[in-house]
Structures are given as C-alpha cells and as structure tokens.
C-alpha cells in the first residue's frame, strides 16, 4: 500500500506540515475518503427518495443501492445470505436490538468480560435486571488479555449468551474469537461479538467463525456517522421478536395485530439514513480495495514504532500487553497523577495531534483498577511514521514538563 497515495483520498489529510492535523483518534471515528463523501452526496444529489415504499423510479434506484450495500456487507463478512445483515445506527443499537429481541429467562446467564465498552455492558445489565437473569464477568489476565481459563470456568449450561468485545477500545487487545465461539457453542450458548474496533481493522468471517451475532459501526471504518450493522444468523433472527416496530417492519396490520415481515425488515423500523447506508457501502468497497493485510501491516508498523520509542519513558504506563502485535493500532497509556485530558489538550495545541483521553466508556475497568483515565492514540492505515514521530516528540516534552 502506498500510504501517501492513500492519504490523498482523505480531504482532511490534504493539508500538510504545520497546517495539517495528526489524527490519532481513529478508534472513536475514522476519517472519510472522498469516495464515501461522494457516495453520500450522490444520494442527496441524484435520488434523495424513499426506498421500497414508493413505486417511482427514484425509489427503485434507492432500493437497488440499498440492496447492493446489504449484499456488499454480507460479502464483506462472508455471511451466508444478505438477509442476515440489519442496518442500524451504530454498534450500540445492534447490541440493544439483540438484548431486547432475544428470549432470556431468569435462569439464564449472560457473560461479558471485565473491560467491555458501556455499549456492551449496560444493555446486558438492564436485561438481567428486567428478566432476573445473571450477569457473569470474565476477568482478564494481568496484561489485560483474554483469560480463556477463567472464561471456561464460568461457562456452564446456564449460560445463554456470551457477549464480548472482539477488539478492545481500551487497549486494542483482541480475543481468541474462534476458540471462544467453539467453547460457547459446546455449551449450547450463543455468541455476540461487539466488533466496533475489529471490523475496521481485520477480516471478520462470520461463517468461518460460526459466530451468532456481530455488531459494528460504520463511522469507525470510513463510513458515515450514525451508520451500523448487526449481523445475525438467519434462523436466529427469524425466531427473535422485533426490537423497535413501526413502518417497514410489517406486511400488514389490523387494529388488533400485525404480520411481521421476515428479517431483516422486521428489525428495520422507520425510515433509514439512506445516504449514510449508501456511504457505508462505499466505505466497505474502499476497505476491500485496500485490503486488511495492508491495513494490519501499517498499524503494526506504527504501533511497533510507538512502543519502541516510548518503552524507556520512565513515567508512561502502558495499558495492555507490552507486545505491539497484541494491541492492533492502539497505544493507550497514563501518566500517574497527571490528568489525561491535559495531555490530550496539550498534544492538540502543540502539533494538532488528536488523541482521545478519559475512560473511553470503559468506566468499569478504570474504576476496578483505580486509574483516573488514559490517553489513547489509535492509528489507522493512513497514519504515517512521521506522524507517530511528532506524537512521540511532543509526548516526551510533556513528560518532562508536567
């Protein structure tokens, strides 16, 4: 991959040097290439109509593009059929959908890890409060990686669902997905992966993994804000009750009841962000063109550099395992006693370096470890070593001064 050439696709990266920004907050949202922006604009400029409900040619064109996007996402995930793809607003909505649509009883147990994003913790907390089911927490190993042994211990026949972040937004650590799915299925339970931080960075093959549900967001993988995908195995989706209901979810209704459409329509209530979904299709196409091998290679190159350059820093406490290979594009750290927001603000002021600071919606983990928060630099394939160097240089200065 020619990084310089790729960067030219991103309007925000057009400015160079002191005028340009160094965007290392990709775990929050990625930047968008022109192809995505054009696709969104294309919808508003040329079709700008409803999908499905109306019969005219503009509506037909929108329906065709949406269908095409659904098929493209299905192929992106290597799903069995495109009807397994549900358009959502984001990862959070996908997870909440499952939490409301799945039958869970008071004898059931739901397992999550001890470092889940609130979006993959709170829906299950509320579900267990609603149903009387139990919530089990799988503790991580000391280096924050997934503890298969601890997981196995908690896994019994009462477990109905295992919900895990595929890649953690806290430290970039990924879980052994294949083993987890296998072990879970062996106990007759289902698996949901929160792939918000995985889908943008690695190939997820749902068929090969045999995973039951996968939720992710478009905006972390070059797509428009407020777009997301929930994958669910078709037979499961068929059995599940709808989450939100209304227009677009039924074939007919009377004053007494209604007849729901099959998945995915049953779960896609109301008018959707058509421009956004078409943009998401363009993002998927763009990622496939770049290829996940190249993406992973560039992220590893950057994380290796960051890890090596900051290894000797006396005050920097890295979160997660020492080996950069295990942390994807994320370098998350804290300086004991120093407010992480201060570091982030200073980085921005010093060289327009944009990072995320705070608890990254993983409050539970920070509370457990009594750490105020961290600074998280999250790289993507369009980041360069030169940018990483600026980040390191600024950070070293900050470390000396604070």
């Amino acid at each position, binding site marked *: 991959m020619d990084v310089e050439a790729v960067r030219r696709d991103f309007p925000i990266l057009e400015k160079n040097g002191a005028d340009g920004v160094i965007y290392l907050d990709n775990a929050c949202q990625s930047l968008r290439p022109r192809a995505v922006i054009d696709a969104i604009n294309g919808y508003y400029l040329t079709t700008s109509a409803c999908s499905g409900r109306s019969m005219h040619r503009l509506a037909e064109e929108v329906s065709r593009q949406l269908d095409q996007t659904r098929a493209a996402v299905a192929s992106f995930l290597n799903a069995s059929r495109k009807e397994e793809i549900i358009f959502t607003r984001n990862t959070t909505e996908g997870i909440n959908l499952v939490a409301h649509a799945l039958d869970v009883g008071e004898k059931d147990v739901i397992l999550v890890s001890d470092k889940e994003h609130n979006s993959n913790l709170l829906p299950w907390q509320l579900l267990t409060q609603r149903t009387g089911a139990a919530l089990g927490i799988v503790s991580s190993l000391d280096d924050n990686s997934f503890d298969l042994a601890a997981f196995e211990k908690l896994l019994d026949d009462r477990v109905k669902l295992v919900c895990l972040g595929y890649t953690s937004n806290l430290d970039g650590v990924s879980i052994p997905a294949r083993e987890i799915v296998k072990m879970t299925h062996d106990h007759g339970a289902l698996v949901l992966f929160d792939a918000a931080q995985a889908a943008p960075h690695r190939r997820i093959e749902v068929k090969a993994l045999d995973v039951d549900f996968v939720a992710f967001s478009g905006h972390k993988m070059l797509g428009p804000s407020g777009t997301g995908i929930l994958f669910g195995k078709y037979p499961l989706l068929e059995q599940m009750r709808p989450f939100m209901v209304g227009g677009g979810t039924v074939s007919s209704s009377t004053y007494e009841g209604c007849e729901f459409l099959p998945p995915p329509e049953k779960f896609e209530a109301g008018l959707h962000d058509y421009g956004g979904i078409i943009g998401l299709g363009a993002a998927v196409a763009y990622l496939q063109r770049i290829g996940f091998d190249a993406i992973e290679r560039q992220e590893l190159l950057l994380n290796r550099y960051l890890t090596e350059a900051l290894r000797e820093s006396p005050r920097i406490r890295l979160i997660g395992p020492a080996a950069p290979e295990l942390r994807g594009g994320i370098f998350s750290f804290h300086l004991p006693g120093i407010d992480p927001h201060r570091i982030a603000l200073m980085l921005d002021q*010093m060289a327009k370096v944009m990072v995320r600071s705070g608890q990254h919606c993983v409050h539970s983990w920070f509370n457990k470890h009594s750490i105020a928060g961290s600074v998280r630099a999250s790289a993507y394939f369009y980041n360069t070593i030169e940018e990483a160097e600026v980040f390191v240089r600024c950070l070293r200065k900050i470390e000396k001064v*604070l």
Partner: protein
Amino acid sequence: MFCIAALLILSVLGIFSARYRSLAKDALDCVLRRVTLRPCITGFDEKMKSRILGRVINRSERAARFLNRNFELLAWVFFILVLGSTVYAARGLYLFYVTGSCNGLNQESFCVFDPKGENNEVTDISQGCKENPPTAADLTLKGVDLSRFPVCNPAGKKEIVLIGCYGCSYTRKIYAPLKELAAARGARFRFLDYPVKVSTTLSARLAECVYRRDEARYWQLNDILFAAAPEQLDDPEFAGKAAMQLGLDWGDLGGCVEDPAVQALVDRRMDEIAKTRFYGTPTVFIGNQVFVGPKPRRVYAIALDGLFYWLKGDGGSRSEGR
C-alpha cells in the same frame, strides 16, 4: 482565580467573536461554581491551562515547566493586573464621559476615545516661549470684571463664560452648542471675544458697535460671524453686508467701527480677559470649573447640571454631535 481573570478578558473578546463568547460562558460557569465552592465541571481552568501550556512548551520547555508549577500564583498576578487595568479603563471611561479626557479635565495625555486629542485642542495665544507657561490650574475669573461683556439670558442662575474668537476654529466648534445649551438649561451665557488672530479685530469692533446699538442684534451678529468663512471676518464689505442683514445702517455703523476709541475699548477688554491667565481659545468657565479646548456638549451639561443632567430634561440633547 484564573477563571475570574479569564472571564474578564474573554467577556471583552466575546464582544467580537462567538468563539470567545462560548469560552466566556464556560469561564462564567467556572466562576459561579468557584464562588459556591463547587468544582468547575466544565474543566474550564484545566482546559485553558493545558492549552496555554501546549503553546508555551513549543517555545520553551523551561517556561512551560515554570508555568505548570506556578500556575495558580501566576493566575493571581494576572488577575490583579487584569483587575487593575479594568479599574483603570473604567476610570478612563468615566473621566472621558465627564471631562472629555481619559485622564481628567484638560489633561492632554493620550486617550483612546479621543486619539487625536481634539477635545483639548486650543488656538494658542502665547507668542514664543514663556518661562512659566500658565496651566489650567492658573485660570480664574477672580478679579475679572465681567460686567463689561454682553450677557445672554441675564436672568439665568448659572453662568457659562466662553473666551474665544470669531476666527478660531475650536471656538467655532463650540460657540453654537454652548449658546444653545445655555438656552436649554436656562444659564447666563457670556462671550468674551479675544481676537487671537489679528485679522479679526474688525469683527471685534463691529461686534462692539452693534452691541452699543442693540444687544439682541449683537447676538445675531455673533451667529453670522461664526457661520462666515474666517477669511471674510476682516473684510469691510462683508461687515457692511452683515450690518445690512441685521437691518443696521452702515453709514452710521462704519464710523463707529473705524473709531480709534472703539479699538481702544476692544484692547481694554482684551486686557481684562487676559487677567484670567487663559492661554488658548476656547476656554470655558462654568461654576468653578474651567474647560480648555472644545469639549463635547455633554461635558458642559454635566458641569451645569451634574452627571444626570439628562434626567432634568434637556431640550437640546439632539445637538450632541461628538
């Protein structure tokens, strides 16, 4: 402390830019929380500190370290400076309103509200350098016999005394507003003509002669003379026309104007005026205050009726032109 100082500055900057306005809002929130001893949730002070540190560190790590360690102390110093300058600025504004100068009555030092110093400009009467030139503090009406000079609204309680000359541009600026102000506020108005420019002695004599014949016409003549182009003031033809305009006979008046006794009287009057030790025109006396230079109309109004003169009604406030 930092929040308060920042609030003061950002409120001013906020007048010009929305960006600063929202920061000022954050600063205000922070101040309100500080005074109620709650933590500043907007993190405003922390945010600003970090941004400042981020800027300073690019220039000097040492300075950034110093700033980081002593931020609260520096914020205090900054606050005191801001407070000091705010008080100073408020004082300047007040003084400008009341006296027309930022630094007090008749002070010529720089004033942002009157950058060219127009409110203190005078037509200088001193010839050459004097060893101890008089200052505003030396000016007085004590020992000056004002009864020799014409008075408008003689029944008025307060009095405005204007020393000026027909041809002096700064006198020209304020003659009409002052006369109008005196009428609006029921004050006596005396005009003490001191022909600084030698070329206006004809006007001085003409005025004296008209005054002798008819006081009301004298004031009308003043209006004509102040409205005329300065170069016309010593032109006998113009003087004749002015007399005609006033319905006076030039044959009769011309003799008076050329009478050396009248010139002598004008000279004596000038000697009388000189007793005030004035050094430039216009100089205005109201009560025991003296105004050197053409002040805005409100300054004279305040001297007559106090800071809230407008509450007492002022038919002439329309003509506040400066």
